[in-house]
């Protein structure tokens, strides 16, 4: 290994592991001591990464309180050093960290709040696309509707919660006390960018969720109806339900396009 590579490895070892082997390669230049010069870089590294997580997960921070949030930051930075050139991705593994690391792992809501905040970030700068309008659907011959395949807007993301994660996030945003973390049965959420470019989130019923998931899997309208028909008295009621979901989705901008199977 050349001198340049050795120096760079020693520098990274300083930042990543606190290994001060680099000291022997640094000129003594009073009034600062060599260790103080190295600490400037060590501190900058910590401050920069902590700042990113504080910004991306502000509400999780309110939920945890200062002490636990600081513990989380310290442990996450040590466990999951940044592997991306952009700081935008640095917190991507935070939900995973919270699920597997005590004391956070004892509270499943924490990973869910973190996941929700990651999804908000992804929806914020997902690809742009046009949004589907009702007249576009109406222009399709009714006989072709069973074959139509709806395309979700690129900003649409899904989250299933076993705890009151989104409700707690919302309460804290509004400076209210979060509700009890425990809920009966899963809560389903759809996150998408609105026409104003603000990121919105919407609760879905289990049936709406099933319907949108079928659409997300690329199923044609007939199969989307089929996927929920068992929940209704007859096929027509099932189809009407799916159409109500389409209306909601079109109103909210969840669809970007429609095309016909075999077209």
């Amino acid at each position: 290994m050349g001198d340049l590579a050795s120096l760079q490895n020693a520098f990274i070892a300083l930042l990543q592991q606190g290994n001060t082997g680099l000291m022997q390669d640094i000129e003594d230049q009073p009034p600062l001591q060599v260790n103080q010069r190295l600490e400037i870089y060590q501190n900058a590294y910590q401050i920069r990464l902590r700042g990113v997580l504080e910004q991306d997960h502000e509400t999780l921070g309110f939920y945890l309180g200062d002490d636990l949030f600081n513990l989380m930051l310290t442990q996450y930075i040590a466990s999951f050093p940044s592997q991306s050139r952009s700081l935008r991705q640095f917190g991507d593994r935070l939900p995973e960290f919270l699920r597997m690391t005590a004391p956070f792992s004892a509270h499943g809501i924490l990973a869910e709040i973190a996941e929700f905040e990651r999804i908000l970030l992804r929806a914020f700068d997902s690809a742009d696309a046009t949004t589907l309008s009702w007249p576009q659907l109406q222009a399709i011959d009714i006989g072709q509707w069973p074959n139509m395949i709806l395309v979700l807007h690129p900003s649409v993301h899904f989250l299933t919660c076993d705890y009151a994660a989104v409700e707690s996030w919302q309460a804290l945003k509004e400076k209210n006390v979060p509700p009890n973390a425990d809920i009966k049965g899963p809560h389903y959420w759809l996150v998408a960018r609105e026409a104003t470019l603000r990121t919105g989130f919407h609760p879905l019923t289990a049936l709406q969720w099933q319907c949108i998931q079928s659409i997300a899997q690329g199923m044609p309208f007939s199969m989307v109806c089929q996927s929920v028909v068992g929940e209704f008295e007859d096929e027509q009621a099932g189809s009407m339900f799916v159409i109500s979901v389409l209306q909601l989705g079109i109103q909210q901008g969840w669809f970007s396009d429609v095309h016909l199977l075999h077209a």
Partner: protein
Amino acid sequence: MSVPFLGFGMGLRTCYFEQIISERPAIDWFEIISENYFVSGGKPWHYLSQIKEQYPIVMHGVSMSIGSTDPLNFDYLRQLKSTIERVNPVWVSDHLCFSALGEFNSHDLLPMPYTEEALNHLTQRISQVQDYLERPMIFENVSSYLTYKQSYMTEWEFLAQLHAQTGCQFLLDINNVYVSARNHNFSAMEYLNAIPKRSIAQIHLAGHKDFDSHIIDTHDEPVCDAVWSLFSQFSQQLPAVSTMIERDDNFPPLVDLLAELDHAKALTHDHWR
């Protein structure tokens, strides 16, 4: 490569997006952080697409890690190239430093030693990057807090040599020169005097935090008097060079940054006509 004189610009930051679009302030050009636009859409591109219709844009990267001894990261370069195609900037810059090694990213601008090995390494990498991007790159001097024992030339000798070997031009950050000069006890003016004048494509002016024993380059304060003085003296030696205020934190009202730009214009008014 000869870059045009764009006048007096500013780093484009999200907190000023709406005001820039609604008020069209008298700023000659904007510099964007390249990596902030490595995303597909949403607000960043919504605002930038409107602003770039009205103002020239240059791109400034912070993550190329041109000095790293790792192989070049072509995933990064692909994203950069595609962003360049979308933005169509007047020029593209990054920093003379390393920031990543292996899978580890420091997200900092870590200094290079000033050695023949580093010079040859940078020469080769700059050529590879420019070939891949199919355009010349401009590189910025970074501020530093340590000096490697291995360095046997000064930073300004190193830059002059690099320019001689590659022909690459520099984004000269005068605040960084001042910060490093104070931190390493050299003359900032000696540094500036030694930089080949034809190599300077752009100038950054910024603020810092002064702790007396050392300075930290924070970009969260107004440009200090000492940096203004360096800029004023140095500008008299130069043809007109595109100059901008770089503010990254503790953002003041836009009018304060416009006042700093006016000050830069006033200092160069007589010789950069």
